[in-house]
């Protein structure tokens, strides 16, 4: 009998493909989540509050920018390590993983990849330690899946840039010290700007009344004639390739994060099915319950293998954006299906806050849409194999 109720679900012995260091990373982050996230996370979700005190702690443990160079105070790990960290954080709650994802892939990554040495020295060590919080501004009120049509723009005023426009659905924007903002210059070319908190005309109102990601702060970024210092332009990238490369890194992390949420739901359901009795037998005795469990385990195992292989490709710098799209889409959908099926196994108890399933399910409804919607990722795969873009 293969016990999948406790520990790490590893039906295909994928652990043998990981290094001793990877296993220690996974266990350490799990221990950290058990102590720092799980005891209060249900309360934070109920109260629609974010455990912002954890950002500094995420920095202490090294979960912010794990793959960023040690030269800038980050751990300098490989992409499988990054994936394992995201998996364990999302087993706790998607809100925690989202904060780490945004800071790592959408803020630290572009500064390291496209920034000047001065920008790297100024921002990366503080971001790695969680001393400052970063946000990423790409999505606009009128432009989600079609960021190329963005309206936010900046003009060169000689000694500064003048920035105007608005971004929305921005994780951590109300508490962010800096935002990486993608905007068009006078020639219509997309460029990245590091916009620091406190600049006149820059506000970040919070978006309230969410029924998903309730432990994460979401908001807008509004720029009304904001004077951005010229040294805050990311010098080494132009065009949509910049934000898309950031999203590749973040979507990769999401493909792993989904495994954590899914495994938590599945383990909860399996445990419950062995304990809950109906007609004098555990409900795990029934074929329909076993079908659900077997199908969920199969889906999770496939998703784990996809994430691991993608991690190897990322490490070798060979992963294509289409492969990342496929993994993000597949794994998030897998997690959402597992959350829904697990909820069914728990019956009415499935909706109770005493179990994590409903919380994961609500969170995953955001994850299936953010960083490229479920449908857009499908069209990216369609484009990759036909050469015909269906979204234009």
């Amino acid at each position, binding site marked *: 009998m293969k*016990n999948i109720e*406790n*520990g790490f679900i590893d039906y295909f012995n994928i652990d043998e493909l990981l290094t*001793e*260091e990877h*296993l*220690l*990373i996974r266990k*350490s982050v799990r*221990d*950290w989540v058990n*102590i720092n996230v799980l005891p209060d996370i249900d309360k934070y979700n109920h109260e629609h509050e974010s455990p912002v005190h954890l950002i500094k702690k995420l920095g*202490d*443990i*090294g*979960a912010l920018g*794990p793959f960023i160079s*040690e030269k800038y105070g980050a*751990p*300098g*790990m490989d992409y499988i*390590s990054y994936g394992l*960290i995201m998996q364990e954080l999302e087993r706790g709650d998607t809100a925690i993983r989202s904060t780490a994802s945004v800071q790592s892939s959408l803020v630290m990554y572009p500064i390291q990849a496209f920034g000047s040495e001065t920008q790297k020295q100024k921002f990366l060590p503080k971001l790695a330690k969680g001393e400052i919080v970063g946000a990423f501004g790409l999505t606009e009120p009128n432009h989600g899946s079609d960021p190329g049509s963005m309206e936010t723009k900046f003009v060169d005023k000689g000694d500064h840039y003048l920035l105007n426009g608005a971004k929305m659905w921005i994780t951590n924007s109300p508490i962010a010290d800096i935002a990486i903002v993608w905007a068009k210059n006078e020639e219509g070319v997309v460029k990245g700007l590091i916009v620091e908190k406190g600049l006149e005309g820059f506000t970040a109102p919070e978006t309230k009344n969410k029924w998903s990601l309730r432990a994460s702060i979401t908001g807008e970024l509004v720029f009304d004639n904001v004077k951005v210092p010229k040294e805050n332009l990311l010098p080494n990238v132009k065009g949509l390739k910049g934000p898309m490369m950031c999203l590749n890194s973040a979507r990769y992390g999401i493909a792993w994060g989904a495994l954590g949420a899914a495994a938590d739901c599945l383990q909860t359901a399996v445990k419950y099915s062995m304990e809950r009795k109906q007609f004098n037998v555990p409900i795990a005795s029934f074929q329909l319950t076993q079908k659900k469990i077997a199908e969920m385990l199969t889906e999770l195992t496939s998703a784990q293998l996809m994430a691991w292989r993608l991690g190897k490709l990322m490490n070798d710098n060979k992963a294509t954006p289409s492969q990342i799209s496929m993994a993000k889409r597949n794994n998030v959908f897998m997690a959402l299906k597992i959350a829904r099926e697990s909820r069914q196994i728990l019956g009415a108890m499935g909706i109770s806050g005493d179990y994590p399933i409903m919380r994961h399910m609500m969170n995953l409804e955001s994850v299936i849409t953010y960083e490229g919607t479920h449908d857009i990722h499908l069209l990216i795969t369609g484009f990759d194999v036909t050469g015909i873009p269906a979204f234009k």
Partner: protein
Amino acid sequence: MKALICIGHVPDTTSKIRFTDNDTKFDTTDIQYIIGPYEELGLTRLLDIKDAGTDLHITAINVGLKETEATLRKALAMGADEAVRIDIDPTDAFFVAKQIAEVFKNGEYDFIVTGKESIDYNGGQVDGMIAEFLNIPSVTGATKFDLLEGKAGFEREIDGGKEVVESVFPFVTSAGKDFAKEPRIPGMRGIMAARRKKLEVITPVEQNLKTEVSKHYLPAAKPACKMVSPDNVEELVRLLHEEAKII
């Protein structure tokens, strides 16, 4: 100052325990290993002392085969400065204590910390035996530990109270619960730094075995729970009398 901390390589507390070879050996199939919880507290306290500014070099030591290196690496990731593995399958406490005492003699260490007992065989003997081999003081099951000027301070739980103890260097102490608040979790930077730390493998000294395990027994399986309706006291009394035979 140099400290030697013994790191036990023990099964995770959620492991399913089975035996092989006619119940004389522990079956290691599917077992995940961890640092012994008391040793983890011991190391955490040493790291806390070091972080507070004391010049302390911490060496993690283990008697075991190559598979125990993952456990020693975790100790390095937590913050130990270097590690030593004595390359032999540990047998009994006398054997292990002898090996550690030899390393201590050759390494100019100031003191040794062990766990108060391993959580697999619950021996609780190694610290006392090391002290005997080295003819140095031993403070067992300490719940508080501080390095003072030229000596070390301890607290121990005793029946109905606490005992405050001081010892000169060198000494052996075994960490009990409360030795540190909660075990330190290795951070990602520590895990990466552990790559560059020295893990020395040394050959054991000869020592004849003093004891051998003739058999292990698992605890008897718990019988199934019988539910008795609250309004059926007669049946409860009958079961307690006739089946449980306790009244």
